[in-house]
């Protein structure tokens, strides 16, 4: 057997001289019981000037640490990010955000009353999906996470169709297979949502490569949460997007929490998520996610860049998950009550509403009327959706369980279906 020996090392210092090593486990500033305090959140003063669409990414590093804002605390829109949106379009955005929130409220109630097994709200994050849907073309392909229902609503997708999926009823085009809120709507250019976090990020890059390969004009856009940035698919997406200069928008919705883990556990304690882009040679912008106008403006910039053949942009939308992670979650177990109310960037619906009022394009009365109207819309949709059934009553036939595993039903699945009696 070969003998092995290790010489004394040649390093200058000797091991004895060294202090014991340690590592650090990030902890949020406050936990239940303590008074909520978000004063730790440093917001850069004003936002940086809107760069030229063709600005080289090396010159954009500061944007990953800044915060694109348009709406001021005085509810006025200012700065050169100010997008060209007329009052009608802003009211359209307000309408879609409000509809999204009311929809969430009704669906959560439906879950509480047993009409569905599960639900996830996007409360406080409505501006992101809605403004981005308006900034994108209707047929640009969206690869969302489970918190972008606002995309479907802003694109005018059928609420009844969405509710049927949530109820897993006979009207559910997914035949009751998927967890509620895991929508799929190809007609609305909305990709089937995966229960596996992050997988859609690299898929969106592949889709956009395909679109570019075909000389198509449709962009792809994808969304992940702050926590999901740690998954491999995030790294794959940024790598492929940078290497092949792919026309895709890569969005990180930093809502401060990943179930019970604050964003520091994903790396947000030491830097921003927009900064990830720098390492790949991509532009990264951090954006006030509760500022409808800022979300729209930053998205338009990234779209223009992609359409100009300059490739992908990483957008971090800085926001706060105002509600529970899901209907199965109770945040009082890990964060102080009332933290949401302290969020320094406010509520996206309230801010756009106040802006429209400030510029004389909206009023409390009109808002109340709109709320009433949309509540009715949802009620009507709810009634229609429930006519297709709710959880546990009127589902698709169990026979459908064996469909769509493959395009054609193979022999072994036919036999299994027979064993089940269908």
């Amino acid at each position, binding site marked *: 057997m070969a003998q092995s020996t290790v010489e004394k090392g040649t390093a200058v210092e000797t091991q004895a001289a060294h202090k014991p090593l340690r*590592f650090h*486990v990030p*902890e949020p500033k406050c*936990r239940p019981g303590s008074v909520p305090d978000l004063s730790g959140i440093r917001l850069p003063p004003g936002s940086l000037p809107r760069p030229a669409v063709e600005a080289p990414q090396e010159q954009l590093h500061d944007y990953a640490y800044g915060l694109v804002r348009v709406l001021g605390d005085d509810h006025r829109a200012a700065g050169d990010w100010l997008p060209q949106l007329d009052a009608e379009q802003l009211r359209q955005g307000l309408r879609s955000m409000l509809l999204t929130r009311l929809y969430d409220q009704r669906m959560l109630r439906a879950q509480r009353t047993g009409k569905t*097994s*599960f639900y996830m709200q996007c409360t406080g994050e409505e501006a992101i999906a809605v403004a981005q849907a308006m900034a994108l073309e209707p047929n640009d392909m969206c690869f969302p996470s489970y918190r972008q229902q606002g995309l479907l609503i802003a694109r005018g997708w059928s609420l009844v169709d969405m509710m049927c999926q949530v109820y*897993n009823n006979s009207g*559910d085009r997914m*035949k*009751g*297979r*998927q*967890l*509620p809120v*895991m929508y799929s709507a190809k007609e609305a250019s909305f990709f089937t949502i*995966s*229960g*596996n*976090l*992050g997988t859609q990020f690299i898929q969106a890059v592949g889709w956009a490569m395909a679109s570019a390969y075909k000389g198509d004009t449709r962009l792809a856009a994808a969304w992940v949460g702050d*926590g*999901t940035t*740690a*998954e*491999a698919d995030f790294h794959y997406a940024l790598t492929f997007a940078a290497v092949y200069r792919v026309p895709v928008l890569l969005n990180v919705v930093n809502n401060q929490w*990943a*179930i*019970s*883990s604050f964003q520091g*556990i*994903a*790396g947000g304690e030491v830097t921003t998520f927009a900064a990830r882009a720098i390492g790949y040679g991509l532009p990264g912008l951090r954006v006030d996610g509760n500022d409808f106008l800022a979300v729209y403006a930053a998205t338009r910039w990234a779209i223009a860049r992609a359409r100009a053949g300059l490739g992908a942009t990483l957008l971090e939308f800085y926001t706060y998950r105002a509600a529970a992670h899901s209907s*199965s979650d109770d945040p009082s*177990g*890990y964060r102080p009550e009332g933290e949401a109310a302290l969020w320094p960037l406010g509520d996206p619906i309230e801010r756009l509403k106040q802006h429209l009022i400030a510029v004389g394009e909206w009023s409390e009365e009109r808002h109340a009327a709109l709320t009433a109207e949309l509540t009715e819309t949802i009620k009507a949709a709810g009634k229609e959706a429930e006519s297709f059934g709710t*959880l546990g009553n009127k*589902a*698709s036939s*169990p026979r*459908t*369980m*064996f469909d769509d*595993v493959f395009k054609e039903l193979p022999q*072994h*699945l036919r036999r*299994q279906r027979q064993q*089940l009696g269908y």
Partner: protein
Amino acid sequence: MPAMTMIQAINSAMDVMLGRDPDVLVFGEDVGYFGGVFRCTAGLQKKYGHTRVFDTPIAEGGIVGAAVGMGAYGLRPVVEIQFADYIYPAMDQLTSEAARLRYRSGGEFTAPITVRTPCGGGIYGGQTHSQSPEALFTHVCGLKTVMPSNPYDAKGLLIAAIEDDDPVIFFEPKRLYNGPFDGHHDRPVKPWAGHPMGEVPEGYYRIPLGQAAVLRPGAAVTVLCYGTMVHVALAAVAESGIDAEVIDLRTLVPLDLDTIEASVRKTGRCVIVHEATRTGGFGAELSAQVQETCFSHLEAPIERITGWDTPYPLAHEWQYFPGPARVAEALKRVMEF
């Protein structure tokens, strides 16, 4: 002895090992302050500190990769993968690394890690919160695979897994977390309290890996099962009135073939039950081995009652789930063969 749910028993196993062995660490997504989405690690960070029990980034491959490195250093990390459906990103670190370190280094480096993960359906989890992927691991040499069916076994087996010097994948049937579920989803749920296997000692004890348990002796037919299906099988046997011998495998690899062989040689009949999809499921390996070792004793075909070869659909999970009725029919078929 205190009555514990399976969650409390699993929590107790980690509590005991954290207390006994300073080299045991516990981490994973949401396992720290919050104590895990299923509460299996509740209270442990508070008790042992946040460098021993902590939250991780959402990166299953990173969690296992870091654990492999810690194991190589000499620690015994116990990691949680929040749902078995999310273990795939860790497949490379488990298959190419944890399972291979000892072999490829000639025994110089090892990975004494435990990977806990909830599996199985019946909670309206849909296709990504219901899977039972154990067969993807039983095929990988170098990994041990365990799936308990009750609180007492869960604690004893988890302690044995943590103390084991090889990597162990520890599947926790989530439908059993709070009660002995027999597959009758339409009947009132039973708690572990009052169930004999819900009696769990506070302190340290272990159930050796690789030993099956004969839960019901019988002469007519052998039923091989594990996890949730143990309770389904027992219910089916009771309802069919057939004198079946019900064997809870508990550990899939290494397999307790002696117990299986002795039983089938005696009964001459065998029904295998698992919740995972059929094709290439662990039932196939069980069927092949029983057939190889007991051929001349078999009086009827070995049957497999399993989940269908489809994803686990939310609305139809009870048509997917291999319940007592399907098992009872199989028992009758093999008896009438």
